[in-house]
């Protein structure tokens, strides 16, 4: 069983420190619910684990068993067994979904998969996710609805079979049926031994996938690491108890002012 070990991790983006000392260990058998208000570093942590070039690690370490993740390229991290199901998967015009999937599967295997076997796996996986097969023949994520993009992320997870999957708001954009389908897939993969770190703002997904643990990130630090009962508590009462019980002041999600201000033209527009 693989183990992801993060120690004293600090990371910044555009010179601003977002992660301020993360200590976290996830076993492959676990499903960890990752909670916290917007803008406190949850997505940043997932992106840092997978190696997004926008983020700079200034201190600390990430190991997958004895592999130093921070010394690995993004593709090596994927091949080592890490997967990030993205919050906003990019659209890549011209790149056919099935070509991409096949190239990804081949990148994970020593021997290239045969055409027959690839389409067999693809067919089984799309059926499991109740995805129209034609999504596989279209440009990658281009013109996909929000729900289709998220299912496409899970399709990749199914085909690449990572050891630990990091899912960033995978439930946003999913309708009730799609949420059930995706959570069924997650449950199956849990049984097979895949580990999960799942960000979501809604208890519904967590009710369906039954996490074994819950962590809460506030101000770039993990302030709660405990049993799944925190999910229900936060869903019902919000994060206020963190301030009253733990004495931690929650930073407001800062939004930079738009540098363009309303000028003369705008005023004239209003007068008219």
């Amino acid at each position, binding site marked *: 069983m693989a183990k992801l070990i993060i120690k004293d991790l600090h990371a910044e983006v555009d010179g601003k420190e977002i992660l301020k000392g993360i200590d976290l260990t996830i076993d492959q058998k676990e499903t960890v619910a990752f909670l916290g208000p917007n803008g406190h570093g949850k997505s940043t942590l997932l992106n840092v684990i*997978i*190696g*997004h*070039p*926008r983020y700079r690690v200034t201190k600390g370490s990430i190991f997958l068993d004895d592999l130093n993740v921070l010394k690995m*390229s*993004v*593709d090596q*991290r*994927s*091949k080592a067994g890490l*997967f*990030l199901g*993205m919050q906003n*998967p*990019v659209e*890549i*015009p*011209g*790149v*056919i979904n099935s*070509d*991409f999937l096949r*190239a*990804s599967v081949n*990148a*994970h295997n020593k021997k290239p998969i045969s055409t027959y076997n690839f389409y067999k796996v693809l067919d089984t996986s799309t059926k499991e996710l109740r995805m129209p097969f034609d999504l596989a023949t279209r*440009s990658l994520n281009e013109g996909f609805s929000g729900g289709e993009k998220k299912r496409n992320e899970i399709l*990749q997870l199914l085909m*690449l079979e990572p050891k630990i999957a990091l899912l960033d708001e995978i439930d946003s954009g999913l309708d009730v049926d799609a949420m059930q389908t995706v959570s069924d897939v997650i449950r199956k993969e849990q049984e097979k031994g895949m580990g999960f770190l799942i960000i979501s703002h809604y208890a519904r997904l967590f009710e369906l996938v039954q996490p074994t643990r819950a962590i809460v990130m506030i101000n770039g630090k993990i302030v709660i690491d405990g049993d799944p009962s925190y999910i229900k508590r936060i869903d019902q009462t919000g994060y206020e108890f963190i301030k009253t019980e733990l004495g931690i002041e929650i930073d407001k999600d800062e939004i930079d002012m738009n540098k363009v201000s309303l000028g003369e033209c705008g005023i004239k527009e209003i007068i008219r």
Partner: protein
Amino acid sequence: MKKEIILCESEMTKYETRSILLKENEQVQITTNSNSANYIFVSDFSNSSVLNICLKENSKMQLSFLAKHNFDKAEINVDLEKGASFTAYFADFSKDKEKLKVTINLKGEGSTAYWHLASLSANNDNKDFNVNINHIAFQTTALSDNYGVCKDQSKLVFSGCSAIQKGSHGSHTRQNSKIMVFDNSCDAIARPLLKIDEKDIEASHGAVVGRIPEDHLFYLTSRGLDESEAKRLITYGYLKPITRGFFDESVREEIISLIERRM
């Protein structure tokens, strides 16, 4: 200089397929009959070859080019009469120094033209594609799509003017030029130009020259593809759509193989 005339006499209901090779210094004139439908495959260009096309009333033509060798400079001139429709796909995998000038004259009311270019420029290639579309009659429509990949020390230029002349009201024109740049040492220029001399028209252009977006590379590499494989896949996706302009499966396969070999 040779001059050859091909008359296409097929019925409107199906495309008549012809394959031609433009030889050095050769000037070929193709004239369609009214109400005919023609598919012409140009298997290669040669130095200083000129292709002149005249589409008679309500005729339609799809012209698909596959340029594999050096053609130095070449010209394509197309005149469209009333209601005629012209579609061209130009797959450019030529080498060295090339200059292609295309002039499409929408002379008849309601005539339409679609131009799609995919060009791969590598090593020390120096390529210049100049695509001009003249809207001379009213309610004419044109779309010019130009896709390029520029790498190594090569140079690639997409230029051209879409002109809507006086009297061409109700016309629509659009130019798209996109060049993906791979190396610091290559040079790519997209220079679209619109000249409008009439009201009640729609005209637009878009030009993009740049590297592969970082987030596209990140997405693909996060699924295990190494950077070179990710770039290959993105480039392949950029140029591959040109294959839909070729009716013959073996030519489509040849284009795919050219993309893979030259990348």
